[in-house]
Each structure stands twice: as structure tokens, then as C-alpha cells.
């Protein structure tokens, strides 16, 4: 017994999602078609709309429906400060923290050689032109403090050094309100290695 071709193609399409194998994809397809047809329609329309409307912001490379996103178009933000992050979720978190009133650049990924993700797979060239537009004075590298995030930070630094820009990296150390007694030893050790002069 074989599935009708359109069901098969739906199952195959669902398998593009990370962590979804043939069994999960089949389960999702049956659920959408049998139990939640309205949801399936919403999903189809939302996907279609996102695909046709969303592009990357010309300036910060995050997802946007307009050529320049709202944040980049906001003239009240400091134009000389550019904060480089890996993903849009990082940008949202920094916005929630109300700690940065400059602009952003979203790399849309991180360099991870062991996963086969190299410098060409993140938006380094776009960052290069954005950071050297003549208005930006300081570039804050806010990639993650994972090995991959640090490797990405290194490549960004190599790309932008000696070009008259001030390059900074967000600090790492004890969490705010952290007590030495309860912090994990890796964080504590690194806070000690990177202690600052008073």
C-alpha cells in the first residue's frame, strides 16, 4: 500500500525541519490533514507570506519586511555604535536588556569548522561594508561565549582590525547578583583569569 503522491510530498517537505525524521514527519502530516485542517491552512499561508515578504534588512541583515528594518530606520539611536550578534534572538535579548542604544548587525550564524560552517556561510562581507560606512566608530562583538562564538569573534576582529574602528568584546565573568559559592567552576575560573584592574 502506497501513500498518494501529494501526501508523500508533504511528508518529504516536513522532513526539512531540524530534528524531524520520517516518522515524525508522517505523524505531523496526519495530524495536519486529519485533526487540524484550519491549522494546516494557517501554516501554509504563513509560510507562503513569510517566504514572499521577508527579506534581510539592507543594513543589519536581520529578517525584515521592508528594505531597512524599523530598528535601523530609527534615527534616535546612536549611529556610531554597531553591535554584532549571531542570531535575531540575540538581538531581541539585547533589546530586552535595554543596554545598547546603537544599531545592530546580525551575522545569521556562527563559524563552526567541525560542522562545516566557514566564514563564507555567515554575512561577513555585508558586515565589512556596513562597519566601514564611515559613520560607525565602535563595533561591539557580542557573539556567544561558546567555542564557535569565540571563533566567530576572532574572524570578525581579523576582518575589521586596523581600519580606524574601535573594536570591543562584551565582557564575561560572574553573573550579576552571583555568589562565588554557587557559581559553576568554569565561569568562576574564567572570571579570575579575566580579572580587571581597579
Amino acid at each position, binding site marked *: 500500500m502506497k501513500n498518494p503522491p501529494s501526501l508523500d510530498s508533504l511528508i518529504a517537505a516536513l522532513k526539512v525541519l531540524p530534528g524531524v525524521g520520517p516518522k515524525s514527519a508522517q505523524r505531523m502530516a496526519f495530524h495536519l490533514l486529519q485533526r487540524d485542517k484550519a491549522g494546516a491552512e494557517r501554516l501554509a499561508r504563513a509560510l507562503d507570506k513569510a517566504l514572499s515578504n521577508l527579506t534581510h534588512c539592507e543594513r543589519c541583515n536581520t529578517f525584515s519586511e521592508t528594505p531597512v528594518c524599523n530598528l535601523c530606520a530609527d534615527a534616535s539611536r546612536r549611529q556610531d555604535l554597531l553591535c554584532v550578534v549571531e542570531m535575531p534572538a540575540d538581538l531581541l535579548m539585547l533589546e530586552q536588556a535595554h543596554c545598547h542604544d546603537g544599531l545592530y548587525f546580525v551575522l545569521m550564524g556562527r*563559524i563552526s*569548522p*567541525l*560542522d562545516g560552517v566557514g566564514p563564507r556561510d555567515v554575512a561577513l562581507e555585508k558586515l565589512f561594508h556596513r562597519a566601514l560606512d564611515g559613520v560607525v566608530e565602535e563595533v561591539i562583538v557580542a557573539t556567544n561565549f561558546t*567555542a564557535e562564538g569565540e571563533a566567530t569573534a576572532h574572524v570578525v576582529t581579523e*576582518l575589521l582590525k586596523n581600519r580606524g574602528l574601535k573594536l570591543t568584546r562584551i565582557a564575561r565573568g560572574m553573573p550579576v547578583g552571583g555568589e562565588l559559592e554557587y557559581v559553576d567552576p568554569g565561569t568562576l575560573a574564567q572570571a579570575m583569569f579575566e580579572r580587571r584592574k581597579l
Partner: protein
Amino acid sequence: MQPGKVDHQPAYVLHSQPWRETSLLVEVLTRDHGRLTLVARSARRPQSALRGLLLPFAPLTIAWFGKGELRTLHAADWQGGVPQLSGMALICGFYLNELAMRLSARDDANPALFAAHDAAVRALAREPAYGAVLRRYEWALLTALGFAPPLDADDAQRPIDPAARYHVVPDASPHRLESGPADAGVGGATLIAMAAGDYADPAVRHEARGFLRACLDHHLGGRPLATRELLQAISALPE
């Protein structure tokens, strides 16, 4: 006692990737059990104690249980003493990890490989002479895996002459060149220094690099190293 339980095993994380909703799939190099893959359950939850621990280039002792290919991480303890690698040292660290992942066999206990890995990570964190660290690691890795060509004598069983030149291939003794240009092959002095692990001389490092690269490429089976490509991409960045 759970099946296949191992406790207090010195280990380094080589690589990790997300698995299911909140877990990590961690590739580790252990001292007495070789390279293996462990599931670290809930390691990606915000409150997980494993978050700051399961990082590459940090000496750990770990415990796991389970049978078969995929075992479950039970505990990880921070051993410390090595600051997180950054900058070029970090890229070199990725290179060590990639070599270990590509060349070592799973579940093949190899304390010599672990010792070489440990020494190389500590050296990268300490000294800026990355070239010497990488050459020493490459040779130690080839030796530990039994891939290193013998360097104690040439193919006619004569001792290596520091003044002579040798033709070297990845899996046989060096062949002494009786004539030819003065920069043909590899110098005897380099082979003696390599066997002794002495890479202080830049000329030795330079000659050893080409030879080691040929040996590694021979065993890597033609697939390029991603970290080598990354290094080339960094040096090709616009000036």
C-alpha cells in the same frame, strides 16, 4: 551498578551538537576509553549545571553509563587550570579536535593520544608558539595511532645522518638521497629533531610541516580539513 558504568574518567570535549529539545550530543576523547559519543540530557536547559562545563578545551573528569554506540553522560567535573582558548589559539584548538575526530577510531583506548591532546591544549593556552605545538601534536597523534613512519633509521637500516637529505613518504622509512639539489626532500637534522619532539628551530618547523601534512593527508583519505580551510580563509581576508 549500572551496565557499562565508568566513573572519574579524564576527558576533553571534542565537539557537541544540539540533540532533541534540550539535550546535547557530545563527542569526547577519554584517557582509557578512547573517543566516544555521549548524550548529555537536559544540558541545554538554562539552569543546567553542565552548560559551563561541556566546552571544548576544558579538562574534565566525566562519568557515563550505557551500552552500545550512544551512552549517557552521568556527571562531569571541572578540572580547571586551562583558561578558555581565544583568537588564533582557539582556531588551532579546533584543528586538534578535528584531527582527533577524523583520525582516531571510536572506542579505541589510546592513553598516548589523550596525553598528546592534553599537552597540546595546555600548551596552546600558555605559549604563543602555536606552530611548534601543532607540529608536536601532529607527530604525537600519528605515533599514538600507529601511523607514523619510523624515523630511527633509513630504509637501508643506517642511522639518520643530520647532514644528509632524505626522501620521505607517509608509511615507510626515509630513503637517503645520494645526489640531487641541496633542498630536495627533508634534511636528516629535521628527522632527528622530529623524533625527539624538538621544534625550536624554525627551519625544522618549516620542513616538518610539509612532511607531516603529507602524512596526515595520506591518512585523511582526500577529504579536506575544515579548520585548515578556515585558517586559509582568515589569512585571505581583505587587507
